[in-house]
């Protein structure tokens, strides 16, 4: 699962590039350059996952953060993931398992070339932030076998009962204090400074405030943003290697100003084909997107005037809109609570409630689920989620299926048909509602 698209994939035919887009593009390019030049600069690299990404902590040790999920997305957007997945299957991986893993493993087998065309470095450590997905453990065990580098397990308990208990926080803080920090100190040669961590956390919270503001602009009609397809760009810096940096603060400040300006002008979202036309449908989307046909998928929505006003996928790296902020006053506890609270670590009843609330708060017409073949963490139980959300909100729901980065599972015709029937269903409900009124 998970996020982060460079604006390279967010082209703007007639669209003038906003400051935020330019900024993000520069940030991502610089980041990949730092990574691919690590062997020359001597920088050390730690790989980790987006949910449970401890970027502030990683920065305390002057380590570079490499996120294999993001690399898989980049491969998907560049249409290279299909070949990588096949390569992984050729070397013994089952056709049944998560394609993020296979895209990563296949990319390694084919030389590990990053989006800038240069070889990505071997990691000096694998920070196995085991949060919200069981596949993460197997993924990093596979990488450990390959790189033979230090692997640091940070186990995040699951919020099975819908709450974070003191036992969970204590367990995580102890792991961070006594396992993660000493190992990162040893690998980096940098001593841990808790005040430095506090500074980064302060910056994180600032950017998080602006991100939430942006996401909430979708409550307006028309919504000035698309909170799924567009949202994937917006979460890039904060879910990736930039949370806690000045760059992220600048990016979200620009973005917020741009969204406010669009709102003031009564404009809808920016799409790859320019400003979206009239807003006709407002949807809440559950599940990750498809990356191999990302634009084609998006177009099926904006061509029909469908805008996504809230999505769960944009919460996999932190559920900030429900109030969580990184808190410099309790630096280790806040990292624990951050990991515990990410979307995929939330129980199914919590997810149902969150989606139903989104439909009410964002005045959406209904729920659309994009069910991802790869991802048991998201997908197992989604059919029940769909029924429950329908029952609670009285709004229609629909279900489409695809995969994150395996192009074999994207059937454009099927998805388009389903979406068209869904939009018709919404129209009928509206007509029924008017007739009844």
């Amino acid at each position: 699962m998970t996020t982060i698209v460079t604006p390279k994939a967010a082209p703007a035919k007639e669209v003038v590039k906003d400051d935020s887009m330019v900024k993000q593009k520069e940030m991502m390019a610089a980041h990949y350059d730092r990574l691919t030049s690590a062997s020359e600069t001597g920088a050390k690299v730690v790989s980790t996952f987006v949910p449970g990404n401890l970027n502030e902590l990683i920065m305390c040790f002057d380590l570079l953060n490499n996120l294999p999920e993001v690399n898989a997305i980049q491969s998907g957007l560049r249409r290279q993931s299909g070949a990588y997945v096949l390569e992984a299957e050729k070397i013994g991986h089952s056709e049944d398992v998560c394609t993020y893993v296979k895209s990563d493993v296949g990319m390694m087998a084919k030389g590990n070339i990053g989006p800038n065309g240069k070889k990505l470095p071997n990691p000096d450590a694998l920070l196995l932030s085991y949060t919200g997905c069981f596949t993460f453990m197997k993924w990093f065990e596979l990488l450990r076998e390959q790189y033979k580098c230090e692997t640091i397990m940070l186990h995040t308990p699951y919020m099975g009962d819908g709450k974070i208990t003191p036992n969970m926080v204590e367990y995580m803080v102890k792991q961070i204090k006594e396992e993660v920090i000493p190992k990162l100190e040893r690998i980096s040669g940098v001593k841990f400074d808790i005040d430095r961590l506090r500074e980064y956390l302060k910056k994180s919270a600032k950017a998080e405030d602006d991100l939430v503001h942006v996401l909430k602009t979708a409550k307006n009609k028309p919504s000035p943003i698309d909170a799924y397809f567009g949202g994937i760009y917006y979460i890039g810096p904060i879910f990736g290697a930039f949370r806690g940096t000045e760059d992220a603060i600048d990016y979200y400040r620009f973005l917020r100003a741009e969204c406010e300006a669009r709102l003031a002008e009564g404009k809808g979202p920016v799409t790859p084909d320019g400003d979206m036309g009239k807003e006709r449908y407002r949807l809440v989307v559950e599940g990750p997107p498809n990356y191999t046909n990302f634009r084609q998928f998006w177009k099926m929505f904006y061509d029909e005037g469908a805008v996504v006003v809230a999505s769960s996928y944009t919460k996999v790296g932190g559920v900030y809109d429900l109030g969580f902020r990184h808190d410099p006053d309790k630096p280790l506890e806040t990292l624990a609570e951050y990991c515990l609270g990410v979307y995929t670590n939330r129980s199914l009843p919590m997810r149902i409630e969150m989606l139903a609330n989104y439909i009410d708060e964002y005045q959406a017409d209904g729920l659309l689920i994009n069910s991802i073949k790869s991802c048991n963490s998201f997908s197992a139980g989604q059919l029940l989620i769909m029924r429950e959300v329908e029952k609670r909100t009285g709004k229609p729901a629909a279900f489409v299926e695809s995969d994150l980065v395996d192009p074999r599972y994207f059937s454009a015709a099927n998805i388009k048909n389903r979406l068209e029937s869904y939009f018709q269903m919404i129209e009928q409900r509206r007509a029924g509602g008017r007739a009844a009124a």
Partner: protein
Amino acid sequence: MAASLNGHSNGSGHGNGSASSAGAGTADIVARAQALFDDLSFTAARAWKDAGPDRKVVGYMPIYVPREVIHAAGFLPLGILGGGDQLEVIHGDAYYQSYICRIPRSTIELGVSGRLDFVDGMLFPSICDVIRNLSGMWKTMFPNVYVRYFDVPQNYRDDIGGNYYVNELSELMHDLGTLRGRPITDEELRASIAVYNENRRLVRALYDFRAERPWQVPAAEAYLILRAGLVLPVEEHTALIREYLAAAGAEERPKRDNCRVVVTGLFCEQPPLNLIKSLELAGCYVVDDDLLLVTRWLTEDVPLEGNPLQNLALAFLHHSESTAAKYEPNLKEKGQHLVRAVKRSGAEGVIFASPSFCDPALLDRPMLQHVLKDAGIPYIAFKYAENSGQMQPIREQAGTFADSIKLWSGT
């Protein structure tokens, strides 16, 4: 409390094969286990519950829960393993996409069809995202049942993972005490630990005996005997294994020219009984496997003196089975449990049998295969579903494997 679980074999509805009847042959004992296996309405567990007003049943799924805590409350722990190949899944498919394994949909079927309506609590262990999410589905669909996602540590330090686990265990103990209306005492828990220690000793004896003389203990029989332990009160199950071991030791069965294999990957969704039989018919004696790990998860006796929760936690951290759902902190140790199982049981090869769409088993598989390759141990791999009907391809594959092992050992 533990005593109250004793002596209810008649209440189980299977009076014929009562654990205490002396001198039964393997056929009778296995028939009793087969009847329990075939019974998708859990008649025996229902009868157990009906035999007393305060009796409660707590279900659990793979891979491991500390059944001692359930037993200490005086409840019956009931293993729920999906529906096998005899259950017609009518509703379950409406809850799962085609690319998700079978066990959750047939488990939902058991629930929706009322077959589990006598179950008072359900524990969903930390094994994979599918069972994790099923815990939330159960909460939503069966709001009157006590449901707990049972997490276990992936950190093996006594003061970190150990402490966390002690607290998780004590929450469980508290919850089950509330369910019964009276707290569970340390004494009760100690007594239950003793009962399960004995059961695990017998399970290990069964595995040792089979590894030594696999022709005396066909794999399907061992499985049925073990599986009975997921529905019977533990005391009855211990007696059943004892009885079976005595009977199997007394009967001479023909020894075939089979090769000896360890089968792995079966730790969650169950293979059809026919699959297990097919392996043997194809020329492979199963001398070890990872079926029903809950019955021998803890590899040594849990001490009885001292704090019982602490003892259960330390046993989990330092003396428990290795499997895909458990993190192996040491790269050099990764997969070595399988090499050790091969050596211990005198196996000549390994069969990877994994449920389709099972991320834990299938992602672990290449790593385990690399380790076997380095150790010079041959292997084959295939997938199954709990309702797979066609055994011919599997039989052929296993047969060819057996032949090649014999050929190889002959040279």
